[in-house]
């Protein structure tokens, strides 16, 4: 019935658009498919819901055998050969077989639908987005907001990334999570996440986008705390949720300002209205900066980056999907979506670029000294997100989105590869009943000989992220840095002044920081690969017998991502490269996104003196040299043979320790904000205000006053009739006296 209603609603609204009548008419189905998956998996997870392997409420807490037989009987096809030699009794959910089909299935269907829409879009030229309005959502006074989805070139790119990379990660999750007792719950959350992510990228106005924005935050919270029976995981989820609320406050204020000054909140209306505002004025700058606060929260930029490393407490495919490939890039998407606003405010744009650059460098330095393989990748993600913000900050919206796409390929590959490693390490330690840390690189080493496929695929991703041509990361990162450099010559950003600093100077600094971060990126990624896959094995003699390659359901998505990491750069070949080597058509994404961000890019780069081909070549050479130097330096300098396992580790000293401890930012924030907040809450709000004022004065105080009056009243009631008579007579006499003497 809902489907029929949606169909009826959509057929009424979308008329006379190049896309109407085609596959794009099924736009509503795109987010609906994962939602259906969420409902099915959610219902299945309610059936025999359990907390996890350590759930104390489980009756067969230590005797899994009965349930394992049952699960094996129900999903025998899934069981055979998947985890090979694992003869341990498992705790597999009884509906695991159904979930394995539904969970990734809805995503693959969505991806197929997205491809159909993509091919429909390629055939037509469209200058305005294809909008489907379903019903009026909010109408109060001047405010009227429709529940509407829109499809344009930018949304299409994001939809393809979300459903495409999402599908691969869903398939990987089947291998990674199948033995988990919360398996249906996991896929329910994952499907729900994709639903909200699609709402985010398809929303036709800021409030609908905000619904998706909050929804992905919710799913992120749920999945970070997926294994919530351990408090540290639940705390990490709460941290992510709370830090994101700070950013959302900024986003909300930006929306309020937009509505207060423009009266509309849909993208086309805002884009049209913003052009009437004074360029570079206080209002537009305030809107952009508040919006960027939201982006900094969602996309983990300074100062709100602190939640992302902790978010690694969730299952590794979640880190790949939500905390690397899709959700954390929502901030970049939001800025590209609001390109018109940001292009009107050079100060805000420079702020975005500067924060991105500082974050890129800061996170990269921390990544140099991390031992947890997922923490390295987390800080790497923060750093790469910083690059994306440099891109959208300097008005290279295409480059920012391009890096978003390539990053989703190679970072998902890195995370899934790390997931395979952790999976195998964990299984080995599980087999030998060891409680060593399966994520610590000091316990790994030499895994190349046990996991050759994973090793090779992760090396491809490492070369891609480091920026070695012709891998994907090289093109996107180079484009961002080159644009930052070129913008320093005569663009609106260069002529603007940022807190008294000339824009051109700032852009050179940003370029320099970007280049330095590229060097550090190459170093920390090579370090991670060296310590994980090369040198001697430090896992332990007994454990090493159990190390093996990950099952094929986990390596297959890695293959696809590796291919994408290699050829992703072809999506947007720069002119200077195609002139040198005829690799193929240039600027594919650039041309594709032209109707969405072309005018804004032109506005930012107005007056720019285009660098000569020689300069561009020099920039490319510099970028490649830096990346190669980083890899060579790390390869020559780091000696995996000298590493000792974690239990024998001597902590670092001096500045190395400061970096390894992440500059003590968490500790500083704890002292500066968390502890005072606790103290104020406990001593002032709780003991003084709540216990003293509200409970003491107001509740108990009013009771005491009433009791006092009651006591006085009861004293009058002596029960002695004589007194009553006296009072009566005195009253009557007084009344009579009052009347007669008046």
């Amino acid at each position, binding site marked *: 019935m809902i489907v029929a209603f949606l169909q009826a609603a959509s057929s009424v609204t979308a008329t006379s658009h190049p896309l109407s009548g085609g596959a794009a008419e099924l736009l509503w189905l795109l987010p609906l498919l994962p939602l259906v998956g969420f409902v099915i998996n959610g219902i299945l997870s309610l059936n025999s819901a359990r907390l996890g392997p350590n759930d104390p409420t489980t009756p067969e807490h230590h005797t899994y055998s009965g349930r394992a037989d049952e699960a094996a009987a129900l999903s025998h096809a899934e069981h055979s050969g998947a985890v090979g030699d694992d003869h341990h009794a498992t705790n597999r959910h009884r509906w695991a077989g159904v979930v394995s089909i539904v969970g990734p299935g809805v995503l693959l269907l969505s991806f197929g639908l997205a491809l159909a829409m993509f091919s429909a879009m390629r055939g037509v030229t469209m200058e305005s987005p294809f909008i489907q309005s379903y019903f009026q959502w909010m109408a109060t006074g001047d405010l009227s907001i429709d529940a509407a989805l829109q499809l344009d070139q930018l949304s299409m790119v994001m939809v393809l990334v979300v459903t495409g990379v999402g599908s691969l990660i869903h398939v990987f999750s089947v291998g990674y999570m199948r033995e988990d007792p919360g398996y249906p719950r996991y896929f329910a959350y994952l499907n729900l996440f994709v639903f909200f992510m699609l709402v985010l990228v398809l929303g036709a106005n800021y409030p609908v986008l905000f619904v998706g924005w909050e929804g992905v935050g919710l799913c992120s919270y749920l999945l970070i705390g997926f294994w919530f029976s351990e408090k540290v995981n639940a705390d990490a989820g709460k941290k992510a949720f709370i830090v994101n609320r700070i950013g959302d406050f900024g986003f909300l204020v930006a929306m309020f300002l937009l509505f207060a000054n423009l009266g509309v909140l849909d993208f086309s209306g805002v884009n049209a209205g913003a052009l009437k505002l004074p360029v570079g004025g206080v209002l537009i700058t305030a809107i952009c900066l508040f919006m960027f606060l939201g982006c900094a929260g969602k996309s983990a930029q300074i100062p709100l980056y602190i939640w992302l490393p902790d978010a690694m407490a969730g299952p590794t495919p979640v880190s790949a999907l939500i905390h690397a490939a899709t959700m954390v890039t929502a901030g970049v998407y939001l800025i590209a979506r609001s390109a018109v606003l940001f292009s009107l405010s050079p100060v805000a744009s420079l702020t975005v670029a500067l924060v991105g650059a500082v974050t890129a460098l800061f996170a990269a330095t921390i990544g140099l000294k991390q031992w947890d393989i997922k923490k390295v990748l987390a800080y790497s993600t923060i750093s790469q997100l910083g690059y994306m913000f440099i891109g959208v900050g300097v008005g290279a919206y295409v480059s920012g989105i391009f890096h978003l796409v390539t990053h989703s390929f190679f970072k998902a590959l890195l995370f899934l590869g790390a997931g395979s490693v952790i999976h195998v390490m964990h299984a080995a330690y599980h087999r030998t009943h060891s409680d060593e840390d399966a994520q610590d690189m000091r316990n790994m080493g030499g895994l190349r000989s046990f996991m050759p496929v994973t090793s090779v695929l992760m090396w491809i991703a490492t070369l891609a992220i480091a920026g070695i041509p012709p891998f994907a990361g090289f093109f996107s990162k180079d484009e961002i840095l080159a644009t930052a450099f070129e913008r320093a010559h005569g663009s609106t950003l260069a002529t603007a002044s940022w807190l008294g600093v000339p824009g051109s100077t700032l852009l050179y600094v940003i370029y320099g920081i970007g280049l330095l971060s590229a060097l550090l990126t190459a170093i920390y990624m090579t370090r991670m690969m060296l310590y994980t896959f090369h040198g001697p094995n430090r896992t332990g003699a007994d454990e090493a017998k159990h190390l093996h390659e990950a099952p094929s359901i986990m390596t297959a998505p890695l293959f696809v991502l590796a291919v994408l990491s290699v050829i992703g750069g072809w999506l947007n070949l720069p002119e200077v490269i195609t002139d040198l080597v005829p690799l193929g058509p240039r600027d594919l994404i650039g041309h594709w996104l032209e109707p969405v961000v072309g005018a804004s890019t032109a506005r930012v780069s107005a007056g720019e003196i285009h660098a000569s081909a020689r300069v561009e070549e020099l920039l490319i050479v510099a970028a490649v040299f830096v990346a190669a130097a980083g890899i060579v330096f790390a390869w020559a300098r780091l000696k995996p043979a000298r590493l000792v396992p974690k239990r024998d580790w001597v902590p670092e000293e001096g500045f190395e320790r400061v970096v390894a401890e992440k500059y003590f930012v968490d500790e500083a924030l704890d002292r500066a904000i968390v502890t005072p907040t606790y103290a104020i809450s406990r001593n002032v709000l709780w003991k003084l205000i709540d216990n003293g004022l509200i409970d003491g004065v107001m509740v108990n105080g009013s009771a005491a006053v009433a009791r006092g009056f009651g006591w006085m009243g009861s004293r009058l*009631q002596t*029960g*002695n*009739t004589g007194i009553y008579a006296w009072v009566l007579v005195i009253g009557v006499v007084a009344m009579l006296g009052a009347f007669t003497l008046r």
Partner: protein
Amino acid sequence: MLAESLALTAALFTIGVIGVLVHRNAIIIFMCVELMLTAVNLTFVAFSRFYGAPGQVFVIFVMTVSAAEAAVGLAIIIAIFRHRQTINLKDINLLRG
């Protein structure tokens, strides 16, 4: 003549009031109440002598009500005495707050 009549009734009424106030015995208080009623009746009669008949109608009413009141009041006093073996109001103070 009216002034003397009213002075007499006022004196009777005051005696009744003082009796109610100073005595502890329920029967005596009761009798004092009756005295007050009688004083009022006398006032009505005196007024009707000078101003016309309606005052006498009220006397009939008051006598009827006071008869009913005497019946109920005495019944209550007997019930209290049966229960507590006293009709001294000083000892009957169940309603003390």
